[in-house]
């Protein structure tokens, strides 16, 4: 059996292997009962990560449904998607949950989805009302109002 590095999964397996080594190192310093999962899980994780990293599971898994190896444009889309979803969380932290949801929906629909202004504004306003009614009135949950009202962390 030839052993060769699994290039397809390298970007994921290297951090996972490092994670396993790190948790093994830290976990082995805990008491015997507390260290049970951190120690044994990281040992097995290290072994399994190395198994895949060295391409040993290629014998059974040819990675045909592996999607990370798609083209550059696809990777660009994923990066943009991740960034745009992070923007929502940042907006929620700064201006509060409901204003962020309304603004985010509007921007998503109007600027990225090519929807008409009225459609985007109407949908985001209705969403805001539903969220407000559901959480603040029905569930009686006071939602986060943003860093300017609630203060920093």
């Amino acid at each position: 059996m030839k052993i060769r590095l699994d290039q397809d999964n390298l970007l994921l397996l290297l951090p996972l292997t490092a994670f396993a080594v790190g948790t093994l190192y830290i976990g082995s310093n805990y008491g015997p009962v507390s260290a049970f999962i951190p120690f044994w899980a990281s040992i097995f994780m290290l072994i399994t990560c190395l198994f895949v990293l060295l391409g040993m599971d290629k014998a059974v898994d040819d990675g045909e449904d592996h999607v990370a190896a798609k083209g550059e444009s696809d990777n660009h889309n994923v990066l943009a998607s991740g960034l745009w979803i992070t923007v929502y969380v940042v907006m929620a932290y700064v201006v509060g949950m409901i204003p962020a949801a309304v603004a985010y929906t509007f921007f998503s629909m109007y600027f990225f989805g090519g929807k008409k202004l009225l459609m985007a504004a109407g949908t985001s306003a209705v969403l805001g009302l539903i969220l407000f009614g559901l959480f603040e009135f029905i569930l009686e949950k006071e939602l986060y109002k943003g860093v300017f009202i609630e203060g920093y962390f």
Partner: protein
Amino acid sequence: MEALDLAVIGDAWLRLFELDSLLYLMLGTLIGLIFGVLPGLGGTTALALMIPFSMNMDAGDAIILMAGVMGVAPTSGAVTAILLNTPGTAPNAATTLDGYPLAQQGRAGFAIGAAASASGLGGIIGIIFLIAMVPITREIVLMFAPTEFLLLAVLGLVTVSLSTGKKFVKSLIVGLFGLIIASVGYHEVTGEERFTFGIDYLWDGFKLVPVMIGFFAVSEMINLWAKRGSVAASGEMEAINFRQVLQGCLEPIKRWKVLLRGSAIGTGVGALPGVGGTVAAFMAYTIAVTTAKPSERDSFGKGNIVGVIAPESANNAKEGGALVPTLAFGIPGSAEMAVFLSVLVLHGMVPGPTIMTESLDIIWILIAAAAASGVIASIITISAASSIAKLTFVDSRTLVPIVLAFAMIGSYSLDNEIYDVFTTLAFGFVGFIFMRFGFPRIAFPLAIVLGPLMETSYFQTLRIGDGTLSILFDRPQSIVIMLLIVGCVAYYLKGFLTSSEGKETSA
């Protein structure tokens, strides 16, 4: 409490017919319907999003809501499978084989009627199996001690990973990662702080709800936004004739042998941890083809109604079967059941002996709700099929922000903690990365739920065994479970060695 106490069973049904309960059931059904129709989202995402809302309810109402979601998702997924050749959930893929050709022949209503009716009847057969298993399972579970629960948790992770077939090792990696994440924070028994790095937020560990919402719902949203366009590719949708729908509804009764066989396969496969609905549906389809008359076999794949009835009955019947290991041993049969398991845990019910003895009333409420939701789902699916299918044409630029808002606010509202939103986002990325690299995610929720159970069972095993694990080899139950674990690993290794030899020979 007796397992088949008629008063408890009667109370459960009466509870279900209270106005509040019916509303929760309808709400769950509606949400499950929407998510079930949208490919890639499905019941797991819907359940994860519903967790924060269920926290404000009492356990019975929460279970009813969740049963509504679980009951309808497989049924509604059949509508898009038939009308658009786009399965709403993975098990509905088997339905496209004959359902879509039927729609192309102008018999969409007939196929939808048969699918909905087979789903409803299959679900009821699965529930009957569950009812029959409750008293037996209870006796079996009471034979188990913490030693066995420790081993069962390991067995659960191994079997769930094994169910991913050739991706066994990758699934194990995800499961082990989940176990380490579950160990963050104070140890329940020793009080020792682990992996907190001085961050106060991590003292209690990662909370289940933000982690689950992130891992399943947010990761799907990242994927959906990156894909662009609508959830399903827009195409021609066949018109639905209501008379055909009614004719289709009667078809599973006429072909009762196919229905019963499909349901039996569904319940049997569903009861095996980790195997899931896709295997059940395709197995039922394959057996339907192989047992058909030789003259009929050629019609499969070209619009044979048996090819719709068999997978749909199996797909819904598996829910009843899957609830058996979930409730009795805390080993869920699917990612959906793993999320459902976390709902039980959050409401203070520990799957295993406790739930089978102390929460039987809740189990019967669940059974009643699951049976009712299957029937309601079938009725709704039949009456609103074409409207349901149109949901798949919703643009991702509209759907993503709406789902994301519910996900993030739901995550925050659990403890009014803004850090939970960041946790949700972080686990959204983690879930997405695993998905993108083709690592099966099913073992992760299982590990998160089973981690604390494993730690407690390990501690109790040490106490019973005077500080050693030698007791593992003293009890026959433990030895049987250990043999099963070894058997599962050996099964994978056998396939691995055979494939290696085959590849070397061909090279």
